[in-house]
């Protein structure tokens, strides 16, 4: 998950944003609706105002026109009265009309052609105001001439025809300056109802545009008047006045809407209309007819100006809303920040918990709300975590203890294996080296050896399976080997007894392959029994003749499978410089990365001649490691090398005596031993000890080798080289191995001490070694005593 800053929105920010958006939307809708109402109100008000203004304008116009009409009508009777009077009267009347009404700029009495024959065909006395003179001067003239055939004029025709007053369409009077005029014509009828003249009053409409200007109540609003046919009577654009009508204008600016408007206006309607003014843009137009003249008055207002206040008010409202929203945002930020502050603290607390501090301080929450519930959940979580950590710790401690115990087991197991090499530094006849590389912490391989009575007992074995169970079985096998071999020199018997013990209650069906050998060190006689183990390799060196052969092995069952199995004994004699290489299948079955086995052939090739036992094992380890490379060791690898290196020492002294089995001959024996000790230059104490040891050994033979009453010989031979003195006691009696006797417990009390067994105990105490061999139907007991270093040797 990418956690970029722009992806991160705090809860406070999001909440604030939503609240502000909602409030803004509500305010906006309210403002828009309010504005609409305000605009509607404004429109209605403006309508009323425009209506009033229009009505005022109409009234004003009506007033003017009524005044003109009244002035005209008031003079009709006077004209009738003075028809027969001199024509000067007519001029006077017209002047009078002008005088009574300042609005009237000209007045004529146009008589029917030939009404006054003496005046000619046309007679029309006319008075008018002199526009050029400063003071209001009224001039008169006769209007009717041959070129001005007034009876054909509209202003004459219409009232004559209608027999009532008639307002002409406004027109531009070119005669007396450019002024807009309209003329009111009134028919004068005689008693018979015949029209004999038309009285006219010319009215200047200049005041109209002035009046219309006063209707302007907005900066940019304007008003205009159109006549019955749509001609502009007043307009903001003066050039339109009387020159253009609304329809031609609409056509010119190509505005159909304006055409429609024109039609509605001249049809005499009162209304309001929105339209697009060419100069004001969107505008409102109010119009009203002036019934007397058939005109239509209109006021045009710019919508912009119209709603100026509303727009301004809207703007102010918008600013207020904006400010309020800002204020709201500020308050929310503060408020929500305050409300969500515990969340930040909770986050920090969780981070702390994640970093291992389970007792992280939680933020204080006073409000009884979700925060409180969250806090309670946190407390529960902390307690639960603490509890679980505690449990985990206990489990780990237990696990650690088990692992520790396994390590102890491994140490115990290793301690059982011989580990001090060379094991017999003061012996020159044997060279032993052993090594074990366990596959798992605790292995199931074993090897062991020890020397008892000049015999090397050794074994190598492999327990089925691995790990703790295998190591337990291994420990049992090893201790059985030690215990049983202590009193039993025959390998096949030791193995048989081990087998019987281990086969009992062997519910797990674990078994041990074991090679057990007993090497008689003085003679090189090797007796062995192989219970299903790999045959050891024998390296013989006799000068240049070197040989690598497997020691021939009978096929026996492994130990522990079947109790009572008869194991077979095998025997050979090895020469000096012979090496025995023992191993477990961990060597031959060592695998490389491609699961190829090391095999016997590689093993045979790898093993070197003329090396000591440690060199051989080092070389083999090197070879097997080079072969397996990175591959994991799958099985225990155990190797044991035994080199027989007995040196033949020069015998420099030899003396023998033969006795028969009669204890009466003991003094002879004592004499003999005394002679030997003298030759060895022993001191009195050592001589006494030799005497004691030999006597005990010989008495043993005298007492036990031959049945009672049978006479037999006992031959005692003393031999000495530079190193040691050796007594060999041999007889032809029954097989009797004194070395298998139980050791004497010297700690027992007088009551518990047995009478017998002291002799052999004394021998082992007094001599350096005792060795029994049965050979050629003879019991041969060998006792050795190391000679003290001679002064000459010391000197060297």
């Amino acid at each position, binding site marked *: 998950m990418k956690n970029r800053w722009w992806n991160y929105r705090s809860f406070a920010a999001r909440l604030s944003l939503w609240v502000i958006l909602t409030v803004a939307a509500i305010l906006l809708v309210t403002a828009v609706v309010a504005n609409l109402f305000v605009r509607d109100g404004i429109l209605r008000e403006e309508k009323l105002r425009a209506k009033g203004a229009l009505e005022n304008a109409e009234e004003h116009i009506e007033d003017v026109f009524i005044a003109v009409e009244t002035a005209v009508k008031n003079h009709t009777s006077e004209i009738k009265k003075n028809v027969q009077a001199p024509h000067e009267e007519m001029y006077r009347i017209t002047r009078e009309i002008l005088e009574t009404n300042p609005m009237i700029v000209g007045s004529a009495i146009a008589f029917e052609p030939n009404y006054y024959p003496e005046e000619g065909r046309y007679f029309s006395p006319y008075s008018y105001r002199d526009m050029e003179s400063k003071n209001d001067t009224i001039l008169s003239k006769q209007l009717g001439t041959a070129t001005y055939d007034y009876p054909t004029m509209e202003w004459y025709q219409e009232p004559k025809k209608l027999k009532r007053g008639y307002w002409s369409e406004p027109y531009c009077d070119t005669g007396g300056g450019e002024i807009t005029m309209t003329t009111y014509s009134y028919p004068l009828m005689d008693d018979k109802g015949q029209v004999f003249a038309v009285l006219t009053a010319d009215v200047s409409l200049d005041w109209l545009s002035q009046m219309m200007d006063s209707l302007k109540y907005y900066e940019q609003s304007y008003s205009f008047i159109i006549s019955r046919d749509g001609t502009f009577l007043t307009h903001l654009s003066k050039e339109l006045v009387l020159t253009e009508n609304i329809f031609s204008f609409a056509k010119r600016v190509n505005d159909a809407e304006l055409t429609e408007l024109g039609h509605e206006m001249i049809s005499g309607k009162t209304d309001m209309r929105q339209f697009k003014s060419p100069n004001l843009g969107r505008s409102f137009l109010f119009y009203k007819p002036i019934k007397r003249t058939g005109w239509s008055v209109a006021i045009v207002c710019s919508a912009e100006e119209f709603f100026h206040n509303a727009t301004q008010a809207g703007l102010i409202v918008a600013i207020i809303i904006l400010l309020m929203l800002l204020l709201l945002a500020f308050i929310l930020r503060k408020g929500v920040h305050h409300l969500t502050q515990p969340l930040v603290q909770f986050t920090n607390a969780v981070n702390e918990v994640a970093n291992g501090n389970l007792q992280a301080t939680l933020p204080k929450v006073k409000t009884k709300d979700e925060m409180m519930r969250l806090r309670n959940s946190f407390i529960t979580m902390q307690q639960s975590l603490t509890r679980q950590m505690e449990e985990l710790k206990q489990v780990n401690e237990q696990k650690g203890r088990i692992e520790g115990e396994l390590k102890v087991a491994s140490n115990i197991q290793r301690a059982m294996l011989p580990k001090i090499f060379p094991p017999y530094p003061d012996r020159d006849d044997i060279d032993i080296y052993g090594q074990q590389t366990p596959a798992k912490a605790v292995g199931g391989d074993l090897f062991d050896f020890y020397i008892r009575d000049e015999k090397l007992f050794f074994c190598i074995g492999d327990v089925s399976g691995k790990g703790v169970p295998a190591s337990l079985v291994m420990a049992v096998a090893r201790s059985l080997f030690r215990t049983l071999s202590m009193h039993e020199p025959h390998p096949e018997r030791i193995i048989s007894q081990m087998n019987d013990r281990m086969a009992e209650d062997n519910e797990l069906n674990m078994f041990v392959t074991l090679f057990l050998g007993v090497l008689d060190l003085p003679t090189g006689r090797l007796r062995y029994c192989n219970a299903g183990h790999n045959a050891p390799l024998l390296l013989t060196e006799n000068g240049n003749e070197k040989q690598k052969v497997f020691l021939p092995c009978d096929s026996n069952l492994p130990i522990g499978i079947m109790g009572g199995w008869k194991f077979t004994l095998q025997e050979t004699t090895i020469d000096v410089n012979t090496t025995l290489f023992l191993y477990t299948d961990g060597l031959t079955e060592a695998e490389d990365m491609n699961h190829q086995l090391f095999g016997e052939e590689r093993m045979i090739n790898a093993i070197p001649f003329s090396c000591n036992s440690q060199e051989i094992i080092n070389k083999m380890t090197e070879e097997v490691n080079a072969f397996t490379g990175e591959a994991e060791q799958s099985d225990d690898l155990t190797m044991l090398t035994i080199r027989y290196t007995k040196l033949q020492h020069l015998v420099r002294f030899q003396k023998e005596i033969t006795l028969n089995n009669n204890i009466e*001959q003991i003094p002879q024996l004592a004499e003999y031993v005394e002679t030997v000790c003298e030759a060895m230059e022993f001191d009195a*104490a050592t001589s006494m000890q030799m005497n004691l040891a030999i006597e005990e050994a010989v008495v043993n033979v005298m007492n036990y080798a031959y049945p009672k009453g049978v006479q037999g010989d006992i031959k005692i031979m003393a031999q000495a080289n530079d190193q040691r003195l050796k007594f060999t006691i041999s007889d032809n009696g029954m097989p009797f191995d004194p070395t298998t006797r139980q050791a*004497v417990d010297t*700690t027992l009390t007088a*009551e518990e001490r047995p009478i017998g067994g*002291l002799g052999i105990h004394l021998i082992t105490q007094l001599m350096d070694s005792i060795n029994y061999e049965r050979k050629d139907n003879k019991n041969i007991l060998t006792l050795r005593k190391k000679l003290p270093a001679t002064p000459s040797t010391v000197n060297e």
Partner: protein
Amino acid sequence: MTTTIKEENNNQVVYFDGRLDTAVSMQVQKDVQPLIDNIKSDVILDCEKLQYISSSGLRIFLSILKNVKPTGHHVYIRSLNKDLRQVFTMTGFINLFEFKD
């Protein structure tokens, strides 16, 4: 090898003189038998003149001890030389007897 039994200071003292080897052990056993049969006081085994002792001799010493102990009396060994004392040490007999110089 001669074995003499004397009564001294209310003690029974056995004097061993010579080599106590297996050849003479039968005779010595016979010689001490009267003492074993009639224990009436503490027994002192005087070894001042004892030159040699084999396991059969040690057995005689042990049989004397085994017979005296139940009577509540003591068996003391007197004037045992250094070499023989070593034999007693080897066999653990040094723990069984009380010694007097």
